[in-house]
C-alpha cells in the first residue's frame, strides 16, 4: 500500500510544537503591546510599554517594595489552602465512614460551589471583621467546595473491581483507604486543588483590594489598589504581571509536575 508521507523540516517541527507555539503567541502579544505604547497609539500613561512594566517590576522587587507584599499574599493563601485541605480530609473521611453525611456534603457542595466568594464578602466581614480570618474564610470557601466536589465524584467513580479485590484479600478499612481510595481519587484531588487555587487567588486579590491594609502589609491586591490610587499604572501592571507569573509558576511547578509524576504516569489523567 502506497502512503503519502510529507517530510517535515526541523523548523516546521519546532513551529508545530505546542509549547513553542504558546511562547511565540505570547512574544507576539508583548511585541504588539510594546509597539502600540511606544508608537503613541495609546497614551503611555494608560498603557505603559511592556519593557517599562518589566523594569518597574524588577526595581520594585529589588528595592523590597513588592517582595514582602507577594510573600504576604502567598502566606495567607498557603494557610488557607492548608486549612481547606485539612477540612476536606476530615469531611471526606466522615463521608466514607458515615454514608448518610455524603448527601448533606454533596448538597452543600452543589449550593456553595457556584457561589462567588466575593458575593459572600459582606457576610464574611460581618462575621470575621476586616482581618486575616476573613481572608482565610474567603479562601476556604473558594477551595473547599471545589475540592470536596471533585473528591466525592472521584470516590463514587472508583471501579467496583478495586473494592471487590480489596474485600477479597480482606483489606482492613484503613488499608483500603491508604492503599486504594487515596490513589483512586488522586485525579479528583489534583483537579479540585487546581480549581481551588484559581478561585482562592482571585478571591484573595479582590479582598486585599477591598480590605485595604491588614497588619503591616496589605498583600499584592493592596499594592495594586494603592498604585491605582496614585494613578501609577506602571506599578499596577507590575503587580498584575507578578500575579500572572505566580499563577504560571504554581501551575507549571506544582500542579503540572504533580500530575506528571502521578496520574499521568499511571495513565489515569483525562486527556
Amino acid at each position, binding site marked *: 500500500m502506497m502512503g503519502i508521507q510529507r517530510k517535515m523540516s526541523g523548523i516546521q517541527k519546532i513551529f508545530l510544537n505546542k509549547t513553542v507555539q504558546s511562547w511565540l503567541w505570547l512574544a507576539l502579544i508583548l511585541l504588539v503591546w510594546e509597539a502600540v505604547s511606544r508608537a503613541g497609539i495609546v497614551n503611555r500613561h494608560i498603557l505603559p510599554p511592556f519593557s517599562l512594566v518589566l523594569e518597574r517590576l524588577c526595581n520594585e522587587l529589588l528595592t523590597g517594595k513588592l517582595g514582602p507584599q507577594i510573600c504576604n499574599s502567598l502566606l495567607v493563601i498557603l494557610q488557607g489552602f492548608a486549612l481547606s485541605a485539612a477540612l476536606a480530609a476530615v469531611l471526606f473521611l466522615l463521608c466514607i465512614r458515615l454514608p448518610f453525611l455524603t448527601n448533606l456534603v454533596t448538597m452543600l457542595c452543589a449550593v456553595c460551589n457556584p457561589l462567588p466568594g466575593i458575593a459572600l464578602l459582606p457576610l464574611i466581614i460581618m462575621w470575621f471583621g476586616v482581618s486575616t480570618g476573613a481572608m482565610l474564610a474567603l479562601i476556604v470557601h473558594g477551595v473547599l467546595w471545589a475540592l470536596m466536589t471533585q473528591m466525592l465524584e472521584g470516590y463514587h467513580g472508583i*471501579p467496583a*473491581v*478495586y473494592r*471487590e*479485590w480489596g*474485600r*477479597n*484479600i*480482606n*483489606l482492613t478499612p484503613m*488499608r483500603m483507604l491508604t*492503599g*486504594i481510595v487515596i*490513589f483512586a481519587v*488522586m485525579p479528583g484531588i489534583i483537579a479540585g486543588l487546581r480549581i481551588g487555587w484559581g478561585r482562592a487567588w482571585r478571591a484573595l486579590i479582590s479582598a486585599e483590594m477591598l480590605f485595604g491594609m491588614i497588619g503591616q502589609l496589605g498583600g499584592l491586591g493592596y499594592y495594586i489598589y494603592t498604585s491605582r490610587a496614585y494613578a501609577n499604572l506602571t506599578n499596577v501592571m507590575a503587580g498584575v504581571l507578578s500575579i500572572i507569573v505566580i499563577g504560571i509558576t504554581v501551575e507549571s511547578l506544582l500542579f503540572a509536575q504533580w500530575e506528571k509524576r*502521578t496520574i499521568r*504516569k*499511571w*495513565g*489515569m489523567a483525562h486527556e
Partner: protein
Amino acid sequence: MNELPVVSIQNLRKSFTMNDGSGLLVLDDISLNVLQGEMVGFIGCSGCGKTTLLRIVGGFENPDSGYVLVDGKAHSQPEKSVLMLFQDLNQLLPWKTVLSNVTAPLLATGAAATKKEAESRALKRIAEVGLEKFAAAYPHQISGGMKQRAALARALALQPRVLLMDEPFASLDNITRKSLQILTRSVCEKYGVTVLFVTHSIDEAVIMADRIVVLNMNPGSIREVFDNSGRENLTSAQRGQRTGDVMASLGMGEM
C-alpha cells in the same frame, strides 16, 4: 486426587427483587462437589446465573438458602483463600507497576514478612506467566492479555486454595485467549489450585475444564455435568464430538 471435596455447593437458591417488587429466581437447587486440583467450567446462556453462582461461592453474595463449604467450613464472606479473577481487564491497580501489583497483596495480608521476600515471590509468579520483562511496567503500558496474566500472577502469589474466574478471557482476541487458557491450566495444575470458572465459550470449557457443568436458564440449575477428563489426549475428532455433546446439551444441536 484427594476425594474430599475442596468446594462443596449444597442446594443453593438465589433470587433477586425486581424494580416492580416481584422476585426473580436466578439459581435453583444447585449442588456440586469440586475436588482438590479440579478445574470445573460452568457454561450456559447469558443470564442463566453463572456469575451469580461464582459470586456466591466467592462470598460476594449471600444465597437465599443453601450453603457453600470450603474445606468443610462454611464460606459466606470473601476470603483470601478463595480468590476471584475478574473479567474486567482493568482490575490491576493503575498506580502500581506489575511487580507492585503482585507484591502489594503479599505485604497487605502478611503473606510475606518483608518487602524483599514479597518481591522475590512476586517475581517468580510474574516469570511463570511470562511477564518478567514487564515487571516494571504500569498496567496502562501493557496489553489486555498481559494485564490478565499479571492478575493471574497476583492471585497465584497468595497461594489460594480456590481460584474463581468470571469469564477472565472474554474480552481478548482468539490467539491471546488460547495461550492464556493453556497457561492458566498449567500454572493452576502446578500449584494444585482448585478452579471454578464461568465461560460463554464451549471451546474454552473443553480445553480447560476437567468437568463441564451446563446450566439451565430461568432459573439457573444444573442441566448436565460432562466428564472432560483426559481432554489433553483427545484427537481433534474426539474434541469436536465433545464440543458437539455440550452444544447439544445447551440446545444448540440443530445450529
